[in-house]
């Protein structure tokens, strides 16, 4: 499994995919956080990263499908998938290797944004006046959300030979998983129904972790979410 993981990661790093997607992510998140008047902290007046953490999931909806779209689709198109599955490695090893390589890339995109945390804490009055607990929680939340989106993206990529289609399916599924349940829940007027449905969505659990409270229920939710989509991937890529 390590061999496949290493190959995947190196192919990201050697093919510009990594640099371009991470670069665009950092550029857009930087612009949103510092420059665009509607979302900029400078105009907002409070030295707080809340706005950043509520915007990043929307960026991830496009960034992550762009990272994951090639994982299975390209191999199926080029025929190298046949080469890979006829080697003595199991289906699960291939799926996990590809998934982990993409998760690492998402992590690499997140790490540079720690600079924002540093700058904002410097801007606070008094200096360092920032809710670090909530920031740590939000980063854990973002990472878990990123892993869940990656699982969706890997699954979407396993459905088709066409990377553009894989991207579109992944972006749509991510958007639905993040927001769809909240909106759907509003259709029903019964309170109990509403909370049940919205608790299926990623947003609920992301918000809950972002408050700085690491609840095992949220953790279990995110882990089972990823495992579920990797299981779908297994079904989609099984021997035909």
């Amino acid at each position, binding site marked *: 499994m390590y061999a496949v993981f290493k190959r995947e990661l190196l192919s990201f790093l050697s093919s510009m995919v990594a640099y371009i997607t991470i670069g665009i992510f950092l550029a857009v998140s930087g612009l949103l956080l510092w420059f665009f008047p509607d979302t900029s902290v400078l105009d907002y007046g409070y030295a707080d990263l809340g706005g950043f953490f509520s915007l990043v999931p929307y960026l991830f909806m496009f960034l992550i499908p762009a990272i994951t779209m090639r994982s299975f689709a390209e191999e199926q198109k080029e025929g190298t998938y046949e080469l890979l*599955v006829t080697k*003595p490695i199991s289906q699960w090893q291939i799926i996990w290797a590809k998934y982990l390589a993409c998760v690492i890339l998402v992590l690499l995109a997140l790490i540079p944004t720690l600079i924002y945390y540093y700058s904002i804490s410097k801007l606070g009055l008094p200096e360092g006046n920032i809710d670090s607990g909530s920031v740590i929680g939000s980063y854990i939340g973002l990472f878990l959300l990123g892993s869940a989106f990656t699982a969706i993206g890997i699954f979407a990529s396993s459905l088709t030979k066409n990377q553009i289609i894989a991207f579109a399916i992944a972006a749509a599924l991510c958007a639905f998983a993040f927001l769809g349940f909240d909106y759907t829940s509003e259709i029903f007027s019964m309170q109990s129904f509403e909370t049940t449905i919205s608790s299926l969505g990623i947003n609920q659990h992301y918000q809950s972790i972002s408050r700085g409270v690491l609840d095992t229920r949220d953790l279990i939710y995110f882990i089972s979410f990823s495992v579920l989509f990797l299981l779908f991937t297994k079904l989609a890529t099984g021997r035909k």
Partner: protein
Amino acid sequence: MVKKFYMSISVRNLSKHYDKQRAVDSISFEAKPGRILGFLGPNGAGKSTTMRMLTGYLEPTSGDAEISGKNILTSAIEAKKQIGYLPENTPLYTEMYVKEFLRFIGQTYQLKNLPARVDEVIKMVGLTPEQHKKIGMLSKGYRQRVGLAQAIIHNPAVLILDEPTSGLDPNQLVDIRALIKELGKNKTVVISTHIMQEVEAICDDIIIINKGRIVANDTLTGIKQNHSQHSLEEIFRALTA
């Protein structure tokens, strides 16, 4: 000491159906070590489908097969270790370097002493002058050699090569055939092709397959004796047209 003897490949009633179409219809055959088996048939006869089932890429609808005594369904991973496989059209990771790619393939077999083994196979398939290039930069003949190198890197008992000579120029053809012939001396080799001269040049045994069924299974000399036609081409036409 009693040594259990296995046929390198033994296939029993292997079938692959797509809806109503029978791509491969209950075929059975065996292949012996030290011999090259030519798998012949018109396009769409089921050659690639059979090979893909043997190598674990496709799931058979029914029937099964053993590779060196390892069942392809119940011990798939073990069976895969016995096989070196070159898929049709030689798919390769074109963005990788030759050595990097061969090391990667070696790692999937968990080979020890990998750098030395990579150098060895590079020498064996004649890739030495191109060994520092990216695979995407290589000509078709050299890509074919990379494909062969990745198939033999773990020194498998069985080599399955799907149209290994398609799209090569006459010089490359001769080289690749000589290489396959050399490899066939101590392995079981199955190659698919529809070039009759190639069969006459390198194969010991022949299986002709048509519409998913085996229509001839004999040695090269045997098939010529049984059919009084002169050339293999005529026999092929008579059996499959």
